[in-house]
């Protein structure tokens, strides 16, 4: 019998508001502990929450982006549990009437097909503070700066069947929330976190197996590894005659394994009830339609446009359309160079490589889209070869100026003067007698490959600056003349 994994995800996206969901304290990341926690966040007696209009706008915008039902009346509920980083003793959340109902996103699979993944709901809630267990021997330190940061919890249907599908879904949601500008998407700072519900069953079976929930995984790569490991662990356990306990697990990136955190038996009793401190949130069509008109171009639409407008391949269009800043960079470069394919290759190749290696955001790239466009123009008009262009890119990255400045300063202009190239070709032919003899005595259909040796020598002699097309043409002409004489 073949096993099948069933995966559902809960994504917590911190909304990019300036202030908290129910108080006027700042949500900025990285402040000194407890300097952004006011009386409301600390749950001091007598304080009352007041809901942030911007958190509402962002949640509704997300609902519209995933074609979801919008909750025209939504209600905050209390989810009761005790933990020191939750000062009220309950988390204000939405259980019964969430702001966003059923919606969906389409994900691209490796075989080029797309799959629709259902979104069950998305609701507003508040983030908890942070507990620091390591710093002190017998006490736990509590930082409540994060307490009350608005979260949108996005709950998927159990529609995914592999770790790869799960990651494709997370990436799609990530690109939607960042494109909408409602979340900065920073996973290492915890702005975008993912809990993975995983179970396995025999293929073809209707009933779900017992599931585990792996909490707070903070990178795409770890999500894939954690799910893969958890699927394997469950299958091994079941094949050895064991059973899966419904429990919360923690992913340990250092060991690349999940381990049990707590069993759900008691923790599950959250005793939800409507929060009496907050009134129902009511919105109308006018509000929703006004927001709909502000929806920016979303990745799926942009991907389709890139294929149509620039004749990009599916894959290139998918990569380049995923993020607003990346898309903008690509389009600017492509328009300057008047060559979308060349721009796509350079943005996804040389530029992405440098950004990754230096852990740099595209908006902070030392080589701007305008600069890269300028470089591609010089490839197009044969001023430089593609190989030299990489050298120019390095220099631009190092801050040595524009493409034209670098080409001028380093004397990298391509040699197109036929006389000069011919001299180099003659020199190479004269200096490599044995190879010329081989060429002459070879069958005509084998000669094409053999020309590569001479190409290499001439390009080397010209320090990469000779026009490869011209070199090739001249070599062929001269060598064939020798062969036929």
């Amino acid at each position, binding site marked *: 019998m073949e096993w099948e994994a069933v995966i559902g995800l809960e994504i917590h996206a911190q909304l990019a*508001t*300036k*202030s908290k969901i129910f*108080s*006027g*304290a*700042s949500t900025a990341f990285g402040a*000194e*502990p*407890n*300097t*952004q*926690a*006011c*009386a409301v966040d*600390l749950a*001091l007696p007598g304080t009352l929450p*007041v*809901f*942030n*209009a*911007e*958190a*509402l706008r962002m949640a509704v915008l997300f609902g519209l982006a995933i074609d979801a039902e919008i909750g025209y*009346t939504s*209600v905050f509920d209390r989810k*009761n549990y*005790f*933990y*020191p980083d939750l000062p009220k003793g309950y988390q204000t959340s939405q259980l019964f*009437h969430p702001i966003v109902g059923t919606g969906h996103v389409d994900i691209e699979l490796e075989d080029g097909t797309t799959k629709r993944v259902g979104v069950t709901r998305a609701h507003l809630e508040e983030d908890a503070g942070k*507990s*620091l*267990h390591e*710093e*002190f021997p*017998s*006490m*736990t*330190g*509590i*930082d*409540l700066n994060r307490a009350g940061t608005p979260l949108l919890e996005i709950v998927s249907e159990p529609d995914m069947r592999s770790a790869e599908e799960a990651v494709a879904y997370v990436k799609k949601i990530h690109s939607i929330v960042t494109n909408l500008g409602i979340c900065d998407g920073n996973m290492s700072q915890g702005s975008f976190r993912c809990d993975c519900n995983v179970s396995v069953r025999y293929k073809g079976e209707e009933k779900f197996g017992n599931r585990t929930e792996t909490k707070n995984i903070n990178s795409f790569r770890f999500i894939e590894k954690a799910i893969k490991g958890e699927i394997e662990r469950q299958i091994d356990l079941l094949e050895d005659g064991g059973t899966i306990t419904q429990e919360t697990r923690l992913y340990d990136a250092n060991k690349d394994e999940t381990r049990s955190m707590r069993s759900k038996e008691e923790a599950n*009793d959250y*005793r939800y009830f*409507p929060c*009496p401190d*907050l*009134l*129902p*949130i*009511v919105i109308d069509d006018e509000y929703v339609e006004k927001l709909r008109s502000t929806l920016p171009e979303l990745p799926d639409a942009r991907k389709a446009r890139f294929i149509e407008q620039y004749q990009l391949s599916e894959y290139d269009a998918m990569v380049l359309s995923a993020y607003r800043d990346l898309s903008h960079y690509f389009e600017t470069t492509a328009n300057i160079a008047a060559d979308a394919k060349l721009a796509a290759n350079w943005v996804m190749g040389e530029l992405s490589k440098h950004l990754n290696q230096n852990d740099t955001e595209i908006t902070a790239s030392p080589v701007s889209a305008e600069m890269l466009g300028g470089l591609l123009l010089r490839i197009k008009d044969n001023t430089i070869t593609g190989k030299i262009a990489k050298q120019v890119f390095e220099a631009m990255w190092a801050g040595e100026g524009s493409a034209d400045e670098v080409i001028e300063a380093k004397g990298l202009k391509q040699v197109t003067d036929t006389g000069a190239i011919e001299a180099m070709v003659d020199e190479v032919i004269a200096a490599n007698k044995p190879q010329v003899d081989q060429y002459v005595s070879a069958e005509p259909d084998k000669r094409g490959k053999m020309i590569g040796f001479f190409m290499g020598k001439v390009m080397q002699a010209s320090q990469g600056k000779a026009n490869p097309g011209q070199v090739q043409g001249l070599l062929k002409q001269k060598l064939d003349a020798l062969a036929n004489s």
Partner: protein
Amino acid sequence: MSLDRSDVEKIAHLARLNIAGQDIQEYAENLSSILDLVDQMQAINTDDIAPMAHPMDAIQRLRIDEVTEGNQRDHLQTVAPAVEAGLFQVPKVIE
């Protein structure tokens, strides 16, 4: 509907309330009579009435997204039993 000792113990545990053993019986009786009152209300037909989320017939007022609260740490931490390095200190919650 009536609650027994174990129900009261469970509720007390969930609410992190420390109840003296000799008081449990009294709590069980008092809570049961509250539930009896709820039972009595269940008899009323509410089929045509939408459940209310709040007893007041009003909707939530919204706040403009502005930072209005600055750093009040020193002031707010004067009421904390234990503070170190700007952090509130609580008994260790994990082993």
